[in-house]
Structure formats: C-alpha cells, structure tokens
C-alpha cells in the first residue's frame, strides 16, 4: 500500500537527458522503480539507461502507459514541463526543480487542481516508498520498509531523521518531501490525510521549519482528524526575523512563521515535538 507512489507507479522522467535527470534515473531504477519513459523535447528516440526518450509527454504516455511524472528540468522550463504532465493527467507530478518562480508554481498548482491531479513540490526531494519505488532524489540506502510515514519541508533533514529511524529499527511506509518553496502542490494537511487513510502507516513524523503557517494548519487538522501518533521536529528556533534561511519559503515575516508558534500549536494538538533532531526516533518508538 503506502501512499502516492509504489509498485503500481509507472514513472516518466521529464528532463531525463540532463545531468541530474540521467543521474537520478539510474538511482531510481536501482531502487526498483519502474521508470518506463523519459521526455526531453528534441531528443525523442534516444535511450537513457535503457529507458526510451520521447519528445512529448503525450507520446510517452501513449507509448509506455506512464502514470506518474518526476520533473528535473531547469527552473525556467519547469512550469511548461509540469503543465504538460498535468495536461496528460499524470498523477502525481513530482517537481524536484529548485528556483521556480512563485507565480509559475501558482499556475501549476491551480491547473493541477482543475485537472484533479496532485503536484508534489517544487523544490523538494520527491517521494520514496521504501522497497517499492523512489521518485526523486532521496538516498535509497537510508530507508527500510516499515510503519512510519514521513512528511517534510526539507531534504537533507529528512535524510538525517530517516537514517535515525532506520538505526532505531523503525522503518518507513512512505516519505513525502513537500519542498521548501512558499507555494507547493502538497501540504502537510494533504499528506496527513493520505497517511491517516493508509493502513500501512501506524505513526507519522512531521518535519517543519520557519515560515508560513502550514505547521499550524497541520496542528489544527491533527487535533480534529488524525488518530495516529504524530511526532515532529521544527527547524529554525534560532533563526532571525526577515532573513530567508536557504529555502525561499523559510522566512519569518513580522510575527508570522516563528518556530515557537509552530511548536506550541503542534504540542497543543498532542504532537510530541523533539527539541533536537536526534530526539525524533525515541518519540516515535514510545508511541508505536
């Protein structure tokens, strides 16, 4: 089971002939992902690691039955690539690209809603269901199949926490990297809804950071709807106001988006929040 991606996923890689696209196609194949097609306009007919390349998504879908997409194309072309995948109703469309203009993301997310498909990202590490499918760039070897669902706004921090869980004998159902941009296609609430309904997920780890109010919205949803234990970590407790901390979305504006506020909201919703990263596995273990 797990969520979003799994054995049923027939993946299309947009930007497969680029450096990142080709590199991660190999790693996704190594992880057992069924990568069935790639798209790079003008390179139709080529092969990358044995995967056939098409000029358009339409042709790739017709030729291979692809049902999901991962976007590795540069930021300037990411909007067009994502819209193309959404037009063909691939689901999910996972956008790895960093640096996509926010208005482009707004259009992509609005079009996805209209088409009834899910976008994950942009500016995220992708989605991994251990032992089944890796869509994106999360390092495969850190994961073990198991009962913990992970949802995160950060890449490397996810790897760190997943590695800690695996060391503690706590495997993962699916890890969803939401992306570090202000406007992303999938929110904490969306992911919590998915994990809540997934029988393979018995506990959830939420990894948030400063900026916006997605964690507060998650806290409200958890209090009302989530019956599974949730542990969390929030990065940026010592971050100054008004400064963008690496991620475009990680900025405290005025009084909005502070770590204290997020931690307080989550704790009030019954979530166990770890003060430091290494504290997460014990919180999960105690609640499983």
């Amino acid at each position, binding site marked *: 089971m797990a969520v979003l991606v799994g054995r049923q996923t027939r993946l299309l890689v947009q930007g497969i002939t680029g450096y990142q696209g080709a590199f991660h196609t190999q790693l996704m194949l190594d992880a057992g992902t069924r990568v069935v097609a790639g798209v790079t306009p003008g390179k139709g007919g080529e092969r990358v690691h044995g995967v056939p390349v098409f000029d358009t998504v339409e042709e790739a879908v017709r030729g291979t039955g692809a049902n999901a997409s991962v976007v590795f194309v540069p*930021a*300037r072309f990411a909007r067009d690539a994502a819209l193309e995948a959404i037009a063909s109703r691939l689901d999910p469309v996972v956008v790895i690209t960093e*640096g*996509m*203009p*926010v*208005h*482009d*993301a*707004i259009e992509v*997310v*609005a*079009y996805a809603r209209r088409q009834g498909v899910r976008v994950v990202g942009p500016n995220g*590490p992708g989605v991994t269901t251990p032992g089944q499918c890796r869509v994106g*760039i*999360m*390092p495969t070897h*850190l994961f073990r199949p198991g009962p913990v669902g992970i949802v*995160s*706004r*950060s*890449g*490397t*921090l996810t*790897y*760190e926490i997943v*590695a800690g869980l695996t060391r503690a004998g706590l495997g993962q159902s699916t890890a969803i990297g939401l992306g*570090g*941009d*202000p*406007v*992303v296609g999938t*929110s904490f609430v969306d992911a919590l809804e998915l994990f809540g309904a997934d029988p393979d997920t018995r506990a959830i780890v939420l*990894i948030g*950071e*400063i900026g*916006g*109010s*997605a964690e507060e*919205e998650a806290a409200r949803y958890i209090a009302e709807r989530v019956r599974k234990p949730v542990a969390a*970590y929030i*990065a*940026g*407790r*010592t*971050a100054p106001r008004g*400064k*963008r*901390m*690496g*991620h*475009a*979305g*990680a900025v405290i504006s005025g*009084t909005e988006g502070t*770590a204290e506020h997020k931690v307080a909201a989550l704790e009030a919703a019954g979530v166990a929040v770890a*003060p*430091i*990263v*290494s504290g997460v596995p014990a919180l999960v273990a105690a609640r499983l």
Partner: protein
Amino acid sequence: MKLHEYQAKEIFARYGLPVQRGAVVEAAEQVAGLDLRYPVVVKAQVLVGGRGKAGGIKLASTPTEAEAKVRAILGMEIQGERVSRVLVAEAAEIDAEYYLAFVTDRSARGVTAVASAAGGVEIETVAHTTPEKIVRGAVDPFLGFQPFQARSLGRRLGFAGPHLAEFERICTTLYRLYWDEDADLAEINPLALAGGHLLCVDAKLVLDDNALYRHQNLPASEEMTPLEREARSHGLAYVELDGDIAVIGNGAGLVMSTLDLLAHFGGRAANFLDVGGGASAEAMQTALEIAQRKSGIRAIFINIFGGITRCDDVARGIVENPPRVPASIRLTGTNEEEGQRILRQAGIVAGLDADEAARAAVELARRPPRRGDG
C-alpha cells in the same frame, strides 16, 4: 527582494498608478534644486518597517525647512538600518486612508487581494485589533483579477460614484503590476483620498527572487550584507548572525537545525551557510573561505549529512582549505568511509554524531584562545 518606496513608486508610475510628484536625494544640498510644490513630506528610504514612529517622516513647508529635515533624517539609524536616501514628495491633504494589496497566499497556494478602510496603520495591527475591517478576495490565476471583483471590494470599503471607478482602475492595475513584475507583495498603505481623488501615498513591493531573471533594469538588492552578496554570487546561501561559531552544512533545513543544535548546547552560531545538495569540493572550499571571513569567529562547526552530497567530495574541499580556527566536523552518509579516510590522512579529525560534534564545537568556542590558560 524588497524595494525601497521610491523604487516601488517608479514602477507604480510606469503602470499609471497615481503617486505624488517627488525626488530622491542623498544630500541636503540637493533639496534647493528640486522643482516641487510646497509643503513637502520628507521620508527616510529604509527597508525596515516603523520609520514613521522612529521619526523618519517629516513635513516641511519651505525649501529651507525641507533641507533641515533631510539633513536630520540622513544618517539616522532606523532599527539598525542607516538612512542614505530620502524621498522628498509633494504633501497631500488626506481625507481618508485605505489599505490595498495583492499578496502571494501560501495557505491558499494562490493570490489574495486584501483591502481595508482602516489604512495608514500596519495591516497586521488591523488584523489583530479589528479583523472585521479587512476584506479579502481570492484571485483565479487564469482569469486574473477582474473589474467586477474590484468593484465588489470597493463597495465593501464604502466607495461609491466616481471613487468606485477610480478604485476599480487602481485595483486592476495593481494586480497587473503584481503579476507582471513577479511580486510576492504589492501594497498601497495608505491608499489615500486626497483632494477628491485616490492617491498611492506609500508603496511597497517585494519581488520574487526566483523570477528576477525575467526582469531587466531592476535595482540591486540592498537587503544583503557584502558577505551575503558575495556568497550568493558563488551560489551559496549565507546569512550573517551574531554568534562566534561559524557553521557550514548541506541543505537549508539541516543547517537551520544545526544552528538550533548549537543553541541547545549553549553556543551561538556566527552564520547560516548552506553549501547545497550535491556540493562539490570547490563549493566546500569557497564555503570555508566565506564562513571564516567574519571577525570574532572562535570555532567552526561543519555538519554534513551526505545524501546527494558525497562525503569524499566534502572531505577533499576541507583538505584543500583546512579550517584556520578550532574545528568540529561531523561527516556521515554517502561515501562516509572514503571521506573520513581523506580527512584522517590530512590529520583532521571528524566524527559521525551531530550532537557530539555540536557539543565539541561549543567547547572549542569557550576555550580561551591562549595556550596554558585554565
């Protein structure tokens, strides 16, 4: 990227939005040469808020008075920001103040129009004290903001007759500006009723850094320190902080958590520096160079969790440009053994555990710099 009021108003004027006539000066002597109708308002150009309260906005009824006010404001410090430019604009007789903005709405994952009849104060304050005075409208990005939506907002603010038509035009124009200029925020506060017409008395524009490549002739960003700008030019995300432990890590979230970890053990980070995913040995060298440039650094903490980043690449970068201050290094993840071996051969010690390494970094920063003490 935040723009100054005068920069935002130049863009407003280009779109045909009504702004007062005015000019920017950098020295009091320039006031005499300005062709303006008096009285004028003299406004400090700073990126931080609260300049009015800090005394950065003054009225002047004669050129001599304006010169004195400009002189007083230039060189003022407002919330740590030095005033180096002042906008001198024709004063307006204000009858009523409104608020209007288009803002990228993270929760709605779209654009929201925000308006209020309680203008002239910070919108956050209005939201806290009298939230019922704020009206909002969602924007369909494919349709844009339509005139009927503007009229609906305008009616809720109490506009009628010719003012409603003026409000409609300002609203739709501001949306066009917000969208076409790739703004995160386009704000008029106050939008004033002055002399029977609506006037943009203040203008605030925050542009999307990711979209700067699509716009020409933009002013250079003034939000960053020279070191932050230099780091940016090398593709590194760097933020200056006020502690004494330099920090390098990979991934924005991991680096933020590293700063928190130092604080947890009683230390204080001197900076945020993300070498990024898949950092090369060269990027690591540059990062080391920049992180140690700030004065007062007593230790450095390098926290690398190799995911896409390879520990051997990082180690090669460190060996090429070894830390000049006492260092605590944590290096684990992809190609960890090779990375650890490269460091060992160069006589550099690195651990695998972030908590231990953070504790060690805090200890190093506390240690007196001279030998034989304590």
